[in-house]
């Protein structure tokens, strides 16, 4: 197992009495050092620390090394490793009929920005309440290192050829298409990523996190813009992040002016501490232009890019009752005989 965990389990159990082990999955079969395994570790931490009951979680993925990872966490949850690029559709259907499930989708850059781009874009519009993660390594890991649509122009393939095509910035698309929680992070930065994950799980709507996750086997060489080295040299954090759960007292002390507390729909807080720049994650325009600038200057901006709390999520738009559709009984599912008779009358 090659998981890098952000913290060792200090207390043995979390607030619902489960140990961290209860949040793990089967043994990873990814390459040693793969960024994806680190992310798995951070996901485990986030769920463990939030004390989410595993059975309330539904895991979704497409196809790829990244899409294999849902087997490596939360083995007590249900999960669905589907077909390449179509995870959003599957998740949308499942969460429409059971919006009480805590949905987490894990995808890759090939899965989401190449074959699955349309579905990703449309799930942003539909604002399905779930956490959507792209484990972004700029290549198709599982098929041995071809460029994906997030590879930067001029970035170098292991064989030596250069990428000719504009990259797709999934975060920019998410913001453009109305996603209300958009972040970018790095597989190796648990300090940033874990609060982002927790914040995402507290958001009411689709939360999207693009996580740069180096592929040690096919895209970790010089000339790659998704390597550990490149990230280390070019990562610029937008803010320092903390998270306080709705059931914890706020113990983080924060200085007026440099720290912001953002309340999330479930009563939790994201704590944003200002770094060099004064970034306002509530402005769509600023978010988009900041991303555009960063791309031009080859910077990798990480942190919470955009937050908009009041967009209605799919279940609201569908006007669904509180009780999920899957819990409806026969009485609800099949209208009574009188309804059929009435309908038949109307066709007579």
């Amino acid at each position, binding site marked *: 197992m090659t998981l890098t965990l952000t913290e060792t389990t200090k207390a043995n159990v979390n607030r619902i009495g489960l140990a961290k082990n209860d949040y793990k999955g*089967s043994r990873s079969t990814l390459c040693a050092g793969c960024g994806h395994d680190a992310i798995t570790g951070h996901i485990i931490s986030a769920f463990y620390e939030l004390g989410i*009951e*595993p*059975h*309330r979680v*539904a*895991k*979704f993925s497409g196809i790829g090394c990244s899409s294999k990872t*849902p*087997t490596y966490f*939360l*083995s*007590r*949850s*249900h*999960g*669905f*490793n*589907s*077909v390449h690029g*179509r995870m*959003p*559709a*599957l*998740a*949308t*259907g*499942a*969460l*429409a*009929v*059971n919006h*009480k*499930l805590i949905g987490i989708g894990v995808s890759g850059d090939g899965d989401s920005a190449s074959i699955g781009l*349309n*579905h990703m874009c*449309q799930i942003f519009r*539909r604002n399905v309440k779930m956490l959507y993660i792209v484990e972004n390594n700029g290549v198709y890991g599982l098929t041995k290192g071809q460029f994906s649509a997030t590879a930067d122009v001029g970035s170098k393939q292991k064989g030596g050829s250069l990428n000719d095509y504009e990259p797709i910035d999934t975060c920019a698309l998410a913001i453009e298409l109305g996603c209300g929680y958009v972040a970018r992070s790095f597989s190796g930065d648990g300090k940033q990523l874990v609060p982002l994950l927790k914040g995402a799980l507290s958001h009411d709507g689709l939360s999207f996190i693009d996580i740069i996750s180096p592929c040690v086997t096919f895209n970790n060489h010089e000339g790659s813009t998704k390597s550990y080295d490149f990230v280390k040299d070019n990562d610029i954090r937008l803010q320092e992040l903390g998270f306080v759960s709705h059931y914890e007292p706020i113990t983080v002390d924060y200085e007026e002016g440099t720290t912001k507390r953002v309340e999330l729909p479930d009563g939790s807080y994201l704590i944003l501490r200002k770094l060099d720049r004064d970034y306002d994650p509530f402005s769509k325009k600023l978010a988009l232009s900041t991303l555009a600038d960063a791309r031009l200057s080859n910077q990798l901006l990480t942190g919470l890019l955009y937050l908009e709390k009041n967009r209605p999520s799919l279940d609201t738009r*569908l*006007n*669904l*009752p*509180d009780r999920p*559709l*899957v819990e*409806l009984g*026969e009485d*609800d*599912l*099949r*209208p009574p*005989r009188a*309804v*059929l*008779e009435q*309908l*038949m009358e109307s*066709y*007579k």
Partner: protein
Amino acid sequence: MESTLNNFTIQVGTVNGSGSQSANLILLRSIFNMGVPCNGKNLFPSNIAGLPTWFTIRVDERGYACRSRDVDICVAMNENTIDADVAELRPGSVLVYNEALAYKPRREDLVVYACPFTTLAGKVTTDPKLKKLVTNMVYVGVLQELLGLDPVAVEQAVQRQFARKAKAVALNLGALREGAAYAREKLRKKDPFRLETRNLTAGKILIEGNAAAAMGALFGGCTLCAWYPITPSSSLPEAFIEFARKHRHDKDGKAKYAVIQAEDEIASLGMVLGGGWAGARAMTSTSGPGISLMSEFAGLGYYTETPGVVFDIQRAGPSTGLPTRTAQGDILKVAYLSHGDTQHIVLLPASVEECFDFGMAAFDLADRFQTPVFVLSDLDLGLNVWMSDPFKYPEKPLDRGKVLSEEDLNRVGKFERYRDVDGDGVPYRTLPGNPHPLAGWFARGSGHNEAAQYTEKPGDYKRMLDRLAKKFETASQQVPAPILQNGGDTRVGLLAYGTSHWAVVESRDQLSASGIQTDYLRLRALPLNGAVERFLAEHERVYVVEQNQTGQMLSILRIHYPAHTSKLASVLHYDGMPIDAACITEQIVAAEKECAD
């Protein structure tokens, strides 16, 4: 000669988008209201407005409901098609046409009634838009007089058609009366076609197959409808939305269903499988091109054993083909949809009643066998108006299949998602959200073993495939059984499915009249089961009637019943029009003659 009382076909040729559809439906319903069996077929272009469209009403006291090849009464309202329309008429047929058209009648062998429809319409309104609309009602008035339509029946039909708009009722009745008055005063009846009141439609309904199927989905407990518009399927989900809006809201006004217009058909089926996996009854509806796009997900559904219902309202053609014409051209494709060794349960409704029944049954079968179920309707059935007995409320409760709840797990104490516990090939499943510690499992389209774990082991992989085969063997016994109609002679058997049924019914009478007695087995589902084999075994020659070019059902029969394959022959029809009885009769008579030779 055949009686022409309550037995003829009317064809109205108009321009689409000109509002002729309400006049056509009023005409149809007027006849129905008189107690005379009838149904209506709309022949329309793949276009929104301006191109030719035809509506045919077959009036038949004996109840024959398939397309009739010949038109007895041609109402010609479209200048662009009148020549061709007239050219196709048999001698003795009736032509009613709009004098305003640049048309000179040339055939002497027809009964021709020229009517100043446009002028008459001008008497009831001067608004040019309204005038255009009610022009069509004038021909209904003319026909009322010519055919002996009961004015009360017609007025009821008009009232019903414009239910909520008193003004429209008045206007249309006005136009109708103008037409009737004109016919009464100016036209002398010279043709034999007449209507007479009967009592043969009492209690019956008139409905399109797509509405019937949507109703099936409603009573089948469907809570998720994910779809992408496509002709001729769209009216199915649209009807579902309408029904659900009326009958599926809770007391707080919340929707006890979800409808999502997906970005494409791939996503539609993806959403359906997501919904099915999560424990809901989910459906989508599409046509040929959508079926092709669903191939990959269909395989995922089969192999992960996820329920879901797909309605395929078949249309003509490879590729885009003829989107507004009918066919039975997807059956071979759907039966094995997706790469690799994949197969599916397919239901084959022939009537609007079966659209309703199978619309419900599909969800039971999908849950029971944990697999996508395809319901193959077609444009003829889906979009046309058919007379039917009212649908029967289901006697049996929903069959939700082998789902283990938390309590079940407590009791059983163990759970493996893909184990064949009962020996029928059908495993048990748990739904997401089940809090039992054993409940969680991971669905995947890649190789897996009984415990739903990833595996590449040859033995594991083969065992799962073999169990799937067994599951389908079990399913073959539980899908709707074929229906046999004995003709008392075991030399000639007919096999058909779906809408070809109606032409077969009439053709059998024609065949019988020409001395060929037939037995008839109507297939209603795949996988095929033992009854089919028996039928094949018992007959010397079996004709398989279908509406495609390559004999797709014949192919499936040949695959499954090699022992009987040499007695099978195809009767095909594939020009986009609904199959008619004569087409079958002619082919069989010719083939039988050869046998006799």
